């Protein structure tokens, strides 16, 4: 290890989360809430908060903070807050309500999540997430979110990968859409009430730090190109994940890393950047022109059986392949979880089948997800009821009828568990900068269970941040009046202007997208489903060379003072370069396999991920040390008092 990592990073002081109370895990959130200072409603009016992003976390936080009486300013890059990518989440949202009497409880949701994350998340955070999960369902139902109901009028649930209980609440295959519309409507209600100012088509390009505290942002009005500074007493980033570093992913095209990457460069630690979840059930790519990948909810694994032809190179029509010549490899290898193994296990298993030549479809990069048995058992209408819109979408994209022919699926980049480091209060290492939802690193560990992303986004936004940010604001006296003329504000604005001018003046010969594709291919190849030391070192060199070419051979047409989509993408891809390098360094230094991070050097005899708790039971939080300096690693040791660290097994 020492030899390959030399010079790529330095090691700083260990860090720790100082806000989580000690004591019984079930009492910690209550203790923290009681210990937090309050601000009376009359004084909240004098305090201002910026919220970047309007997905589940951002919209719910902005609405709740506005309702509480703070002056809130919200930003999103889309033309409406309703279009944040949370809208695309399909399957469901977990909550420990135990409506099914199947042994579920807060404790079990906590346990499943810690285990699912392969013991790389904090017990305190995860317990709190499980604890508030039920209140999320109550809140959303009160807002009119049309969750699925049974004939008695009660809420229906279903089960998801990695668990053995039925705790996932859903709204057909559009749960994210319905939850987001609930939060969006709450946000627009506050906009009408004048407590939240919603700014659409605005992109955050930098963070303003004054006297060591986050005090504002620089944003670009994407219609006019005007650069604006907005100042506040605290800044909340809810800007989502960075999976588009891979170019092809299930993320919306606009999802990017700029907000958190710029904050990282201003001093916010970036935690576990290499933890990227690869989702097992996506529609395979059809060709070179592919611009993004489409996810099929893994809820399909409840009724769909996954298989490949038992013999490599069998190109018969799948319906002509008899049962005895099919390999239901998940049911065979993991009898107790079967097709519902967690995402990392299912993804790697699919890749292994394809690598062994048993893949189906173009390039052999696909496996079958077969609803045939379920349709025969339950009837077509029952399957339509549960998954109709997903199957319609599949048919539109592939021109194949999933009611007649098994669907083809392949893993794709989906969710990033890494993100800005935050403490129990969701505060980053820059005072006054809070980070929520997918943008932070907390709660999921090295792998995320299905239906937990929506839960975390709404837990952070509705219930956790609104309780913790007040403590910061109550204890921090605003450090004097800051206005646009403050030297730090002017300097930050100038740096942003400079970066835009540079991008526009290179006048080279390659488009932004060509660089993005090439960068994505490097990260996918060397820092994707499987990584090894040699490949990661090679990737760092490739990324650096490509970045050099980017800054000398990029072509961006037009000017800043207009709606300029090439310029928008250029700024985002520029930031993906820095992030891609940090991801590879993080993946390289973590010489164990855990969750979504599979190092070929660290596996059990039968090819499962082999963790090394003695060496790596910590969060890797990276500090930016300067443009050409190696990043500095700060370790946050993880203690497990309530869950025993065991090797995960789904067999």
């Amino acid at each position, binding site marked *: 290890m020492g030899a390959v990592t030399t010079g790529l990073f330095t090691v700083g002081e260990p860090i720790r989360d100082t806000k989580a109370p000690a004591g019984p895990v079930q009492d910690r959130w209550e203790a923290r809430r009681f210990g937090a200072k309050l601000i009376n409603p009359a004084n909240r009016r004098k305090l201002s908060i910026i919220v970047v992003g309007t997905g589940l976390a951002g919209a719910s936080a902005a*609405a709740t903070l506005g309702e509480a009486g703070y002056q809130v300013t919200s930003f999103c890059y*889309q*033309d*409406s807050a*309703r*279009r944040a*990518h949370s*809208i*695309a989440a399909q399957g469901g949202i977990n909550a420990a*309500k135990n*409506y099914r009497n199947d042994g579920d409880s807060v404790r079990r949701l906590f346990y499943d999540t810690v285990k699912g994350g392969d013991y790389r998340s904090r017990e305190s955070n995860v317990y709190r997430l499980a604890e508030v999960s039920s*209140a999320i*369902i*109550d*809140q959303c*139902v*009160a*807002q*009119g979110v*049309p*969750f*699925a*109901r*049974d004939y008695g*009028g*009660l*809420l229906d649930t279903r089960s998801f990968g990695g668990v053995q209980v039925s705790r996932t609440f859903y*709204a057909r295959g*559009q749960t994210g*859409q*319905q939850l987001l519309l609930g939060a*969006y*409507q*709450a946000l*627009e*209600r506050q*906009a*009408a009430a004048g407590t939240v100012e919603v700014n*659409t088509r605005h992109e955050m390009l930098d963070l303003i730090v004054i006297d060591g505290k986050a005090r504002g942002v620089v944003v670009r009005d994407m*219609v006019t190109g005007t650069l604006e500074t907005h100042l506040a007493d605290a800044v909340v980033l809810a800007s989502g994940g960075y999976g588009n570093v891979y170019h092809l992913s299930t993320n*919306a*095209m*606009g999802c990017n890393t700029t907000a958190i990457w710029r904050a990282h460069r201003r001093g916010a630690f970036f935690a576990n950047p290499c933890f990227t979840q690869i989702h097992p059930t996506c529609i395979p790519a059809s060709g070179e*022109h592919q*611009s993004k990948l*489409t996810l099929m909810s893994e809820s399909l694994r409840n009724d769909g059986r996954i298989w490949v032809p038992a013999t490599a190179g069998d190109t018969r029509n799948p319906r002509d392949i008899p049962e005895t010549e099919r390999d239901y490899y998940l049911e065979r290898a993991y009898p107790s979880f079967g097709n519902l193994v967690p995402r990392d296990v299912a993804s790697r298993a699919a890749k292994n089948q394809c690598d062994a030549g048993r893949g189906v479809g173009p390039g052999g990069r696909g496996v079958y997800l077969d609803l045939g048995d379920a349709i025969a058992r339950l009837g077509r209408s029952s399957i339509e009821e549960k998954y109709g819109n997903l199957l319609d*979408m599949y048919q*539109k994209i592939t*021109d194949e009828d999933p009611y007649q022919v098994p669907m083809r699926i392949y893993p794709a980049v989906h969710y990033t568990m890494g993100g800005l480091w935050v403490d129990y209060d969701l505060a980053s290492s820059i005072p006054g900068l809070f980070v929520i939802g997918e943008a932070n690193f907390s709660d999921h560990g090295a792998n995320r269970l299905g239906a937990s992303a929506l839960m975390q986004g709404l837990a952070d936004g*509705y*219930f956790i941040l*609104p309780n913790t940010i007040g403590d910061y604001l109550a204890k921090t006296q605003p450090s004097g009046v800051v206005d646009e003329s403050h030297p730090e504000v002017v300097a930050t604005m100038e740096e942003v202007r400079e970066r835009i001018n540079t991008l526009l003046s290179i006048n080279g010969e390659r*488009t932004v*997208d060509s660089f993005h594709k090439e960068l994505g291919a490097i990260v996918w190849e060397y820092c994707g489903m499987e990584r090894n030391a040699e490949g990661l070192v090679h990737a760092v060199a490739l990324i650096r060379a490509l970045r050099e070419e980017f800054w000398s051979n990029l*072509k961006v*047409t*037009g000017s800043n003072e207009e*709606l300029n*989509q*090439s310029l928008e993408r250029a700024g985002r891809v520029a930031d993906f370069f820095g992030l891609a390098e940090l991801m590879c360094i993080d993946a390289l230094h973590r010489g164990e396999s855990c969750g979504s991070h599979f190092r070929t050097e660290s596996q059990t005899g039968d090819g499962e991920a082999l963790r090394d708790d003695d060496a790596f039971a910590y969060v890797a939080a990276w500090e930016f040390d300067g443009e050409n300096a190696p990043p500095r690693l700060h370790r946050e040791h993880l203690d497990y008092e309530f869950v025993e660290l065991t090797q995960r097994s789904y067999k």
Partner: protein
Amino acid sequence: MKITLRIWRQHNVHSPGSMVSYDVDGISADMSFLEMLDVLNERLTITGEDPVAFDHDCREGICGMCSLAIDGVAHGPEGLTTTCQLYMRHFSDGDTIDVEPWHAESFPVVRDLIVDRSALDRIIQAGGYISAPTGAAPEASATLVRKDAADRAFDAATCIGCGACVAACPNGSAMLFTGAKATHLGALPQGQPERGSRALAMVAAHDAEGFGGCTQIGECTAVCPVGIPLDMISRLNADVLSALGDPGL
């Protein structure tokens, strides 16, 4: 495939626009319509021309960001489809395709194929929500919802807010969008207290934004990518009428 595109180019809201022709070849049937535009834009960029600005994001048919009137039809020739889910296999080699922004008084052109749809957000601000402060909401199972009501609410709630209904309507009306929201919230027990006031407020905001009235032509439902039915407008009208006669409002 080789396609000729005639695309509306307009630099900004203040400048005049016109149709401009582009030949694009090397199109595969498995490309989406937007991927085909990506190919055109890469080529334009290399030759130093400004690429065509168009709105898009999730490319999964759910965010509602994509638009485009294709050969005069909102979201193109396929039924129940957003533009991002429209594939080139539905066109033929040698076709000439007209691509234009949504045309509607209340949706000013921002650039090329992009329009400003923020008027729809303002209709929601006027009352398109259930007032439920964050906090100790009642236990979710305490409110029973009949399955048909839940399904009806869900069908209405699937509206993606893309604005195709407005673009297709000869009156430039957003009543299908507004009716869907009124039906979604009005079908649920939680939505009853504000049902009348919501309908009145949203319709007032709708009219104030310059959207036209509904004359039941049905073009909106013909192009709606998620199949919102026309009777949701009737539902809204019924709510407005009963609210007008409600002495409490």
